[in-house]
């Protein structure tokens, strides 16, 4: 008896597996049905990044990454208006996408900088249709797509100068008879051939961004009020109405504070660095009108019609110098000092406040619609705030810093693949919460950030 006990104890250490056993996880769509999922949005959803739309960008778009994860819970395979394998990319201005390369500045100094991948963009993409009647697009991400464009029949009308070429190539309109004059809206395309079961809707950025990017000189922001196609609120309302009438569930997203993005924050307002000689020569010019310069950091000079009789003044803290400001001219041709920055390169604090107010008004509408129609809501502001502060993610540090922050692409506006994956996680969290789904988050480290030569 005694010895039997002993032998049992003796072999106790042997009663264990060699390797830890992998657990099984419950993955569940909850009350949502993703079998006919469609992602709706602007360039973020389409995969526009590095100031261009390319195949790589599309594959790593917010819409594609989100949909791929939703495929775990029944979403269909990706169908997008694919660009070509060459990956040259196409910007809204017909240029190729940006990559990180070496650029020699006006002083002959070579350094890492965003450069275009080729002389010309992939304009051939616009010459042929990307529509296939047997394969309905699951991604209606369109670069430049505003909320108020949702029901516009001008949006895809190639005969009109204001049409959107990225949408025109994916619209079903190619089967229109030539000259028939009938063009369909994005919304008609979305519901063409049956309604979706679930939509992600990330719109509104393009209703304010072009205005901000132009230094508040062009492209007025969309008005809040007005009929669908004119006003922000009713454009969203009618979309929600149609979704609701077809029992389509959705996740909406608010508009982040775009002025926190690298495009508006990479060049500091006081980025004019002067040595003694340069400061002295500028003082000779500006001292007579009461402006003086010091050795070291100085505010850039900006054009301001309201600033005294000469219409120039130093930039003030809080003002944004845009990434479009010609830095070569700053270095070699006294841009920002003797020749003040023109209005198109500057957002004043008043302009920023106006933009901010409009975003808040739009967001109030988006939140209200989400509540009314029982949609999930993503507060993108929280996500971008975290980026602005910077945060650790599985041992990597991510921030809103240009290039080194690792989340934004080289245009300083759109996220890079890793940034899109992180934002897609915010969508999944919102879906999980609202529809009691159990969808795991994405490992954003599996997606590229900035690639270095």
């Amino acid at each position, binding site marked *: 008896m005694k010895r039997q006990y*002993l032998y049992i104890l003796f072999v106790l250490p042997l009663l264990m597996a*060699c*390797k830890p056993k992998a657990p099984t996880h419950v993955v569940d769509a909850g009350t949502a049905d993703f079998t006919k999922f469609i992602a709706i949005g602007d360039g973020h959803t389409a995969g526009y990044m590095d100031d261009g739309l390319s195949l790589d960008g599309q594959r790593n778009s917010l819409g594609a990454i989100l949909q791929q994860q939703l495929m775990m819970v029944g979403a269909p395979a990706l169908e997008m208006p694919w660009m070509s394998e060459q990956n040259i990319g196409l910007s809204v201005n017909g240029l190729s996408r940006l990559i990180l390369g*070496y650029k020699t500045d006006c002083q002959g100094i070579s350094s890492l900088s965003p450069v275009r991948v080729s002389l010309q963009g992939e304009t051939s993409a616009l010459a042929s249709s990307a529509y296939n009647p047997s394969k309905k697009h699951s991604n209606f991400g369109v670069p430049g797509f505003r909320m108020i464009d949702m029901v516009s029949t001008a949006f895809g009308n190639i005969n009109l100068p204001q049409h959107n070429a990225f949408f025109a190539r994916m619209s079903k309109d190619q089967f229109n008879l030539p000259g028939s004059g009938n063009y369909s809206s994005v919304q008609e395309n979305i519901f063409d051939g049956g309604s979706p079961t679930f939509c992600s809707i990330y719109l509104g950025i393009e209703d304010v961004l072009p205005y901000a990017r132009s230094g508040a000189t062009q492209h007025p922001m969309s008005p809040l009020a007005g009929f669908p196609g004119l006003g922000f609120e009713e454009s969203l309302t009618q979309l929600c109405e149609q979704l609701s009438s077809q029992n389509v569930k959705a996740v909406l997203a608010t508009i982040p504070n775009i002025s926190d993005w690298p495009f508006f924050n990479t060049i500091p307002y006081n980025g004019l660095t002067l040595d003694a000689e340069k400061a002295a020569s500028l003082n000779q010019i500006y001292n007579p009108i009461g402006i003086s310069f010091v050795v070291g950091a100085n505010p850039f000079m900006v054009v301001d019609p309201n600033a005294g009789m000469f219409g120039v003044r130093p930039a003030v803290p809080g003002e944004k110098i845009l990434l479009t400001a010609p830095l070569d001219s700053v270095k070699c041709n006294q841009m920002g000092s003797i020749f003040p920055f023109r209005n198109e390169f500057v957002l004043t604090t008043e302009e920023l406040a106006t933009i901010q107010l409009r975003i808040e008004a739009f967001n109030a509408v988006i939140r209200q619609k989400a509540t009314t129609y029982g949609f999930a809501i993503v507060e993108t502001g929280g996500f971008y705030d975290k980026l602005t502060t910077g945060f650790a993610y*599985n041992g*990597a540090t991510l921030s809103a810093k240009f290039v080194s922050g690792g989340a934004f692409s080289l245009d300083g506006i759109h996220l890079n693949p890793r940034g899109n994956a992180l934002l897609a996680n915010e969508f999944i969290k919102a879906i999980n919460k609202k529809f009691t789904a159990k969808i795991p988050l994405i490992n954003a480290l599996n997606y590229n950030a900035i*690639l270095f030569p």
Partner: protein
Amino acid sequence: MRYQNRLIVGGFFFLLFWFNLAEAQGFQVNFQGQKQQGMGCAGSALVQDASTLFFNPAGASFVSKSQVNLAITPIFGNVMYVDSVTNEMYRTENPVGTPLNFYALIKPKRFHRLAYGLSVTTPFGSTVQYEPGWIGRFAITRLSMKVFHIQPTASFKITDNISIGAGFVFSPGSVNLQKDLPVQFNDGTFGHAEISGAAMGYGYNLGVYYNPGGFLSAGLSYRSGINMSVSDGQVDFTVPEGLAPNFPNGSLSASLALPSVTTLGLNIKPKASWNIVADINYVGWNTYDTLAFDYATNTSSLEDTKSPRMYKNIFAFRGGIQYAVFAKDKVLNVRFGGGFGFSPVPTGYLTPETPDGNRAYFTSGISYEFNKRFSLDASIYATKITRADTNLETQLSGTFTTIAWAPGIGINYNW
């Protein structure tokens, strides 16, 4: 008699679960004696061979003969990480760890109260290698740490029942730490950093031992903390050419504080063929509060790093039983034991290089004396550790499960 034995076995398990018998934790390795390994790594008060040089230097003068002792304990450790955010699962591809120990104990014939000796042990160290592309790659991809303790020791019997002992510890070591960097080449592969260097540290080992030769013996020992300092380490970066100026290869310095260990050991001998042993460790892990690397050349991308570790001091309890099966000639001993240990790693500071947690383990062992001079020991150790945490520094959030097996074998030669 049968009743008595049941009482002893039952009592042992009562102790085991009541006091959470345990072993020390962190990257400490407790495989320094095959006989102890058979009894839950306890037995510092049951002096049977030269391994007492490590466990309690005072015990050396109670060893009856001069002896050399050599043992090796391959560790088969498998770690599984399940990310709580993405559900992704990754495993380690650890090479087999090989802690070894060598003891030489000399009993001078003329001064029977004296003993001296030399021990070479590996009480700290580990190699952790994660599978390629794992989610914590920016925290660590591989860590290999080796620490040798070379300890010349002397022990003296003050009375027939009480002895003292002391040893000086030279501690050479080496470290190799690798991780990926969150910068990417044009083809999407990540940059890589490798830190390597030789380390050196010094310490001491003190003990007092009481053995009246009857029902009870006891010992108290103290192994000092040792500051392992890497004075001339090397860091090598593999990064895209465009970033090379930001990541200059060069020298670095670092240090790692190994903890002190205070051990109280008890041995009870209720009958001639039975020994019941229990050890209590107090491990001074709180010296390991930061893992710092001081790079010789700093840039905007390469600043000196100070990662908080914030280890805390812990108690560890171990216990075991030894039974002489053929009591007449004392030829065969069988042993078993086990323990439970608290982790020195506080919540929020769990790292993949030491995926530590409270642990329970079981051991068993056997010894066979071929003749008066030559004997063989064998033991086996098994543990499973599960720990979930979110690291405050890296935000890595998931559950580490470790299963480790350690079969050991040792030989003794007496004269």
